[in-house]
């Protein structure tokens, strides 16, 4: 009994840490866009400005979390054959709700996202999390997973949006598409470098994502190389230690024999 009470707080702490890791994994290590390349269509189409990207991210967070909750609640009742169609219907229901809410409360965002609001239904990220995570885990961790993945998606869209808007217009506007009480823009430059119209268009979207992916790849390669060098140094050290031990043992043996 005493042992049990001793063990419990440790276990709880470990679980909490696990949930935190479950939340943060979606942001960097398993980022849906830059690592898994899920949901690339909205990542290219709605990131001409920062605000539309963030708006899309918020909608996806809502749909992803809600569909994760429902899927993990009813995972035991759905027969395996109709799993995918039923998930699609669940997701489509939430997307319809979100679309109506956006039309009512953020009409400018609704106008600029256009066809990409109903297309959240076929966002591979949401379907992927429903089948790969929510259908196998309990409600609480599914919520945290949905929130983490959604925040990672939003962060990626915001990063792409900032790059494209800055190079296209030389400023970052706020309050245009999102229903904020204030309006204006930051970082106003009038340099020619920040006036490239191509970044608004499709070509800029592809190239900006390509460049960011290459940057993240370069960082990953650098870290891998560093780790490999450290591992090699460690192995060398261990080898040296072992050789030293062997030498000492041999000396001892020789001393005994003498």
């Amino acid at each position, binding site marked *: 009994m005493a042992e049990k009470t001793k063990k419990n707080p440790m276990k709880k702490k470990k679980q909490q840490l696990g949930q935190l890791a479950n939340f943060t994994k979606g942001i960097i290590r398993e980022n849906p866009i830059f690592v898994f390349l899920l949901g690339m269509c909205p990542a290219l189409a709605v990131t001409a400005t920062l605000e539309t990207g963030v708006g899309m991210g918020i909608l996806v967070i809502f749909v992803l979390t809600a569909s994760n909750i429902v899927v993990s609640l009813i995972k035991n009742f759905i027969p395996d054959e109709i799993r995918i169609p039923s998930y699609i219907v669940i997701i*489509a229901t939430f997307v319809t709700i979100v679309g109506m809410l956006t039309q009512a409360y953020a009409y400018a965002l609704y106008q600029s996202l256009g066809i990409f609001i*109903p297309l959240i*239904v076929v966002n591979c990220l949401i379907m992927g999390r429903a089948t790969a995570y929510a259908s196998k885990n309990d409600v609480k961790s599914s919520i945290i997973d949905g929130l983490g993945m959604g925040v990672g998606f939003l962060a990626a869209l915001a990063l792409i949006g900032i790059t494209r808007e800055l190079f296209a217009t030389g400023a970052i506007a706020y309050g245009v598409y999102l229903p904020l009480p204030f309006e204006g823009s930051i970082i106003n430059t009038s340099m020619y470098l920040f006036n490239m119209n191509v970044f608004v268009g499709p*070509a800029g979207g592809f190239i900006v994502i390509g*460049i960011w992916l*290459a940057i993240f790849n*370069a960082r990953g390669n650098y870290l891998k190389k560093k780790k490999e060098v450290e591992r090699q140094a460690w192995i060398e050290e261990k080898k040296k230690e072992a050789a030293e031990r062997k030498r000492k043992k041999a000396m001892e043996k020789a001393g005994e024999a003498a």
Partner: protein
Amino acid sequence: MISPTVFFVAIVSSMLINNVVLMRFLGICPFLGVSKRTESALGMSLAVMFVMVVSSILTYIIYYYILAPLDITFISTIAFILVIASLVQLVELFIKKISKKLYKGLGIYLPLIVTNCAILGVVEINIAQGYPEDYGLFNGLWVATTSAFGAALGFALIMFAFSSIRERLEAAEVPAAWQGVPVSLVVAGIMALAFLGLGGIV
């Protein structure tokens, strides 16, 4: 009767000017995922072409003959995705029955099509265009079908071109950080720049 020019314009504009992949950013997942080899890219494009045309006919009928008279167009997204999902299942069964060879070729791509945003996207765009206002309720169906066919042709064209480029890219010397998807995305960006030039045709 609609003049043939309408169909010609519909095909050219949905195939080249508003290309599904490069101009409208639809169907990026198969564009990046199934374009490593020309053969699989063509298989995917064929499957997409079939499902896209048939589902655009079906959804047009459902939207204008069932949902609009009943005034329940707000559930159109749910209805459309259900139509596409069940259509894909049907096509899979049908192909399995009539030709084992065709099923082997196309079978693996069919389940992927359900979550292909090009299909739902083209269907939604067709409805958003409001063809009945311009051409009448029944004639609009043909225009919608033609433009869906044009969009599918555009998808096939881009898949073919992109997969051919990617096959050559494998032999090229690419810096370590750019290998794989990043360099493909930049290639796609340059293709999109080329397609910008077609903007003034129609």
